[in-house]
């Protein structure tokens, strides 16, 4: 597609439920990233994919968070047993593989846990 596409754009969920957030990167971009933006923590790196593999999972805040990427394209970020502190905007981004390329961000998925 023309840009990074994320869904849902907004999600309200009850504490304890699982949620899935989807990201469709720019066509041809092999690198895909998930970031989280919240008032208290600013912008935080969560996970990075190169193709279908995730060499760096260091940013995932707990084992309730997981992500996968299939076919070198679409990625899903799953949060299990959501907590109120998970409320944030989850931003997906993509870039060409070479370091130093522009990273393009999607519009984000606004997650509210009530």
């Amino acid at each position, binding site marked *: 597609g023309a840009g990074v596409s994320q869904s849902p754009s907004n999600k309200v969920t009850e504490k304890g439920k699982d949620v899935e957030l989807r990201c469709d990167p720019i066509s041809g971009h092999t690198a895909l990233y998930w970031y989280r933006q919240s008032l208290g923590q600013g*912008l935080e790196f969560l996970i990075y994919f190169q193709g279908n593999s995730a060499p760096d999972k260091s940013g995932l805040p707990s084992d309730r968070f997981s992500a996968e990427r299939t076919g070198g394209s679409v990625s899903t970020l799953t949060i299990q047993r959501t907590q109120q502190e998970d409320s944030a905007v989850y931003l997906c981004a993509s870039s060409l593989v070479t370091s130093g390329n522009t990273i393009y961000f999607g519009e984000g998925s606004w997650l509210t846990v009530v």
Partner: protein
Amino acid sequence: ELKVEQNPLFLSMQEGKNYTIYCNYSTTSDRLYWYRQDPGKSLESLFVLLSNGAVKQEGRLMASLDTKARLSTLHITAAVHDLSATYFCAVDGSRYNAGNMLTFGGGTRLMVKP
């Protein structure tokens, strides 16, 4: 651990004035990014700086990078209201040759008054 600090965090300025936003970072990197974020929107890429001494300009904005000082600046010339937004710098602290893993500064909220 890479730390990125921006200052000021908030900047209120009058149209027509000049000002500079500073971005300091704690470890060696020669890849620095500037983004703009409007309220409720995603991150828009402004500049990618890839070497010591790099300078890029777009309209009323000019960014520079001094890797020895671990400092980047975003200079605003003759500000106009349309520049009101939050500006983020981000440093690529990747451990890998490929891909970009960004650590963001806290953002500078710029408000330009008529």
